């Protein structure tokens, strides 16, 4: 984990988020949600500030962040790739597609490539089952993706 320096004004915004929930430890999940919206992810420094403000231990905050899959400790890539793992996509081979993305980008799910270009995540059903398996990159949606298409898709970026 590299050190992340958070600009002062963002620190203040983060503190305001905590305050808007009365610094109530019971609201930790909601605070983290908004913090993630603010920063895009939850680096250690953000968790430390939240812990301080909410008067809970950093270990506890980290425990919550790692328990829920919608929290991420890594910055999203410039082009966030999401692969649908809903039932329809799954039975039509989404996992093989995922494996191919993992292999080509050499990252695990939840990680970002070292150049910051791509990040990889899985989604629950996106409701485009007719197109299964579905992959989204940023705003764009790709349907009926097979492992062989992966290279071509990545080359577009």
């Amino acid at each position, binding site marked *: *984990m*590299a050190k992340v320096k958070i600009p002062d004004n963002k620190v203040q915004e983060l503190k305001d988020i905590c305050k808007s929930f009365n610094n109530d430890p019971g609201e930790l999940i909601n605070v983290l949600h908004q913090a993630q919206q603010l920063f895009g992810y939850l680096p250690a420094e953000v968790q430390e500030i939240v*812990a301080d403000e909410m008067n809970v231990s950093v270990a506890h905050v*980290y425990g919550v962040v*790692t328990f829920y899959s919608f929290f991420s400790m890594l910055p999203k890539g410039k082009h966030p790739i999401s692969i649908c793992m809903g039932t329809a996509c799954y039975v039509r081979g989404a996992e093989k597609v995922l494996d191919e993305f993992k292999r080509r980008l050499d990252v695990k799910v939840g990680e970002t490539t070292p150049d910051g270009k791509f990040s990889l995540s899985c989604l629950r059903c996106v409701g485009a089952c007719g197109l299964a398996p579905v992959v989204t990159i940023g705003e764009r949606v790709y349907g009926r993706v097979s492992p062989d298409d992966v290279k071509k898709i990545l080359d577009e970026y």
Partner: protein
Amino acid sequence: MNLVKLTIDNKPVVVEQGTTILEAAKSIGIKIPSLCYMKMDDMNFENKPGGCRVCVVEVEGRRNLAPACKTECLEGMVVKTHTVRVINARRTVMELILSDHPAECLTCAKSGECELQDLAQNLGIREIHYTGEQSHYKGDRSPAIIREMDKCIMCRRCETACNEVQTVGVLSAVNRGFESVVAPAFEMDLDHSVCTYCGQCVAVCPTGALTERDYTWKVIEALVDPNKTVVVQTAPAVRAALGESFGMEPGTLVTGKMVAALRKLGFDYVFDTDFAADLTIMEEGTEFLDRLTRHLNGDKSVKLPILTSCCPGWVKFFEHQFPEMIDIPSTAKSPQQMFGAIAKSYFAKKLDKKREDLVVVSVMPCLAKKYECTREEFSVNGDADVNVSVTTRELAQLIRNANIDFASLTDEEFDQPLGESTGAGVIFGTTGGVIEAAVRSAYELHTGKHLEKVEFNELRGMEGSRKATVDFDGMKLNIGIAHGLGNARKLLEDVKSGKSDFHAIEIMACPGGCIGGGGQPYHHGNVDILKKRQRAIYEEDAGKPIRKSHENPFIQELYKEFLGKPLSDLSHELLHTHYFDRKKKVEIEE
């Protein structure tokens, strides 16, 4: 108080409403097996996540088996604790736990003391019918504690100890499912966290997941080195617990046998940390009287209350959590470090040796002392004042290693000059003891009068946080006492907000004080053991011919020959220390 009547294994029992089946059964001599559950009255420790399900029982009329540790007794309940269904369920649960546990009992540091191992034996598990992937986590070796999380069964007792009792907040369950583990924030090593090394997580861990860093081999190496003079010091609380490691009743005092065993192990000089405790009283007590007098004379620059500083777990706690208050604790070093500093100056000189020729070993009830002796300010040119610190448990190990039949040893006496101590030095081992020892001496030094009755019963006890007023010949001194860092935190917040009117406060990190230290023989949640150790400490005090630190003839000699007087320049150099603001030091691994 509402009572409920029920039967457990056909035996009728009446209990208070709110009692769990587990406790009700215990009260009539039925020991339902449990694993994650642990409760210690008086210590604010209650861990019942209801997670392991080893304690299940059958309750008539219910479809599902009920966890006895979490289920409250109801009127008319009919409980069965060992039906075939129950036994099968218990075995299944146990086999599932064991299927993700490394089978390393033969070489595990916890073997023989492990609750998981005991349970497997009690249930007669001979085969594990489930195989699956085993979880693996990174290990962690700090100067005091080793975490081998592959052996963790997620009972969460350590979390309860660290977060609720100690309020340090180092440990939390992190990750999900198969990957979940108890760890510090960002899964960094303890070394980088705000851990105080109090070792209370180790004291309650049922398995070998958390153990002390073992330095017995370093001791053996020193003992066989012909060029080294090896000196050992033993903390007050050790003599009140070591016997337990050899099957003796808790509370058996084994001072004389311990000295004999240490001599048999080959230590050149067997000394006593109690001597250094007397020395601590001289320095800390004088510092207190000095601050008090100046305060009473209207000097606004002196701060009261004075806080004791003899517990390194507590010291690290306030350095992390209350750095703005680091000028209130006494500057006196802990007895362990005072001993080291004196051994390597005064005593080395007496032997006509260089300090490097001496190896100072300490036997402590404590894990924080392992860390303390590595602190940089406690060494001279890279040579630590205390070279190795081992626990009561490790001493027992050394004794067994050397084929010594501990129970049959004849009592022996400590060596002089650093082995002589008073009753005041002894009671350092229990909560309330340090301040009582200080009061005994401070009273006489301040009033110039003879103290008739040396026992201050108002300072004794087991409540987590206590207050007492001591009459100093007309002047009322308000004394606070806290043991367990959660209780300390409360007292400290009151001091910080100006709400308290204490003159002096004693703080010990461990529940019960050092008798309940993280390096003592495992108590497995039985508070009675701590109470018995406490009684033993007071018993040792009562039997001492001298019971006030300033009357220790060897302490008097030390000042006459070497130090001059308390708070002299040399005393400051050797016996006092300074503290660090560690707030910013919480690092994040790169």
